[in-house]
């Protein structure tokens, strides 16, 4: 049961069965909404390997990565500031909680009104959604730093720079990563939603156009691509986390 073979094969069984089931039921199906998977696969190869990648995939990925990057820099920066100043953090907490639970898509019309429908709008809306999980988790992580470490730092007269970058941030990094993971999911959603409402490029735009023209195999291929991209980004982030937090994982054993 726990041989490496079984460990790889068992989890792979269900996806294989599901895909085969989809393949054969859709093959003879008559619904125009569920075109044969074989046809979707054909379209997928034509469109996304790699003809339309520069036009639609690249701008979408750019929005996500810029939005996420800005959120990380802002979120960690502000989070450390607020986390180290407990009173301020307590004071602004209600505002942060409100912004966190405000569905960021609800801000889309507002962002369009203020900024228009360019790339900046999409990055902005991603930041408006993705910032809060990182910010709140960083504050939590920084406030949770052990009093022992504070004593060590003070008695060793660490420079503020070393204190923040070598003690505070690493110490909060498990929580920061948890925040980034949540923010990544939000970023993908907001990228897609913002492209539905205002874009002339991008995967979301492509899927919407395909839907409007009733090109269902194309639409499905876009949706599958988006699913794969979302999952792949998640895997990349988990891999980074796995290496960056090796100390955390091992120190607890």
């Amino acid at each position, binding site marked *: 049961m726990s041989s490496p073979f079984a460990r790889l094969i068992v989890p792979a069984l269900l996806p294989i069965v599901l895909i085969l089931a989809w393949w054969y039921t859709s093959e003879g199906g008559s619904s125009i909404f569920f075109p044969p998977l074989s046809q979707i696969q054909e379209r997928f190869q034509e469109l996304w390997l790699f003809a339309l990648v520069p036009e639609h995939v690249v701008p979408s990925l750019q929005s996500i990565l810029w939005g996420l990057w800005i959120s990380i820099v802002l979120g960690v920066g502000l989070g450390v500031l607020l986390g180290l100043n407990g009173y301020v953090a307590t004071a602004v907490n209600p505002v942060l909680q409100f912004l966190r639970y405000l569905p960021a898509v609800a801000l889309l019309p507002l962002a369009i009104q203020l900024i228009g429908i360019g790339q900046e709008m999409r990055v902005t809306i991603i930041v408006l959604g993705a910032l809060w999980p990182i910010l709140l988790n960083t504050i939590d992580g920084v406030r949770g730093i*052990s009093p*022992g*470490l504070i*004593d*060590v730092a*003070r*008695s*060793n*007269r*660490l*420079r503020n720079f*070393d204190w923040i970058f*070598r*003690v505070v941030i*690493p*110490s909060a*990094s498990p929580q920061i990563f948890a925040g980034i993971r949540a923010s990544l999911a939000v970023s993908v959603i907001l990228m897609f939603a913002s492209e539905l409402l205002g874009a002339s490029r991008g995967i979301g735009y492509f899927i919407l156009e395909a839907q409007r023209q009733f090109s269902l195999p194309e639409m499905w291929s876009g949706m599958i691509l988006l699913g794969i991209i979302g999952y792949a980004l998640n895997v990349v982030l988990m891999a980074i986390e796995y290496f960056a937090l090796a*100390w*955390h994982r*091992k*120190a607890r054993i």
Partner: protein
Amino acid sequence: MQATKTPVLEAVNISKSYGEKQVLADVSFSAGEGEFVCIVGPSGTGKTTLLRTLSALGTANSGEVRVNGMAITRPPAEVSVVFQDYSRSLMPWMRVGKNIELPLRRYKLSPAERTTRVTEALRDVGLEHAKDLYPWEMSGGMQQRVAIARSLAYRPQVLIMDEPFASVDAQTRADLEDLMLDIRARLGVTIVLVTHDIEEAVYLGDKVIVLSGRPASVSATVDVPLGRTRDQISTKSRPDYLELRAKIHAMIMQSPSSVSG
């Protein structure tokens, strides 16, 4: 050793209260250059409070701490602290070498000199080959050695230690005690060690400060004339050692206010 010389570390009439509750009352003592001073007292007598005041991590309500005759208000460069809880005082995300190097970063040292200092400090505690390990790959005793090395690399005049061997097993504890005696002999650093263990205090100290009562005050300062080289077996079986141990034990037991507290 000369009585006329300014003590390296001096506590003058330190008092401290937390709200209504007074913890320290008029605590005074001094530690000369190269001297090994043990502060002993039962649990809950404000030893940790005293230590935080000595290292300027906490402030006293009255009295002052002087280092080389100068009153201190912030953690001074001449003093380094080894904390009891080694697992929390080392950064688990840094290798041993980086942990030791961390406090040195504020000084403009060349990379070569930094490396030298780290290597020397590790050699001083007998961990020459541990530079690239992570703290959590080591035993508790080794981790405490790393914490001591971090303080030594800083080249302090005074090493303040808070129950440093409370969470290791007996054999490791004996090894670490002898390591501290050895470090004092070789480097001439002044050591102030806080402990609740009378045996440890007498074995290590040139001088034992007995803290008792609530609020705690210095009930006695006992010189320990056992010489500077000591041995776990022969020293601990000397009649004068046993006598001193019994005497300090009696002082702590008989302290009237510790009963009423």
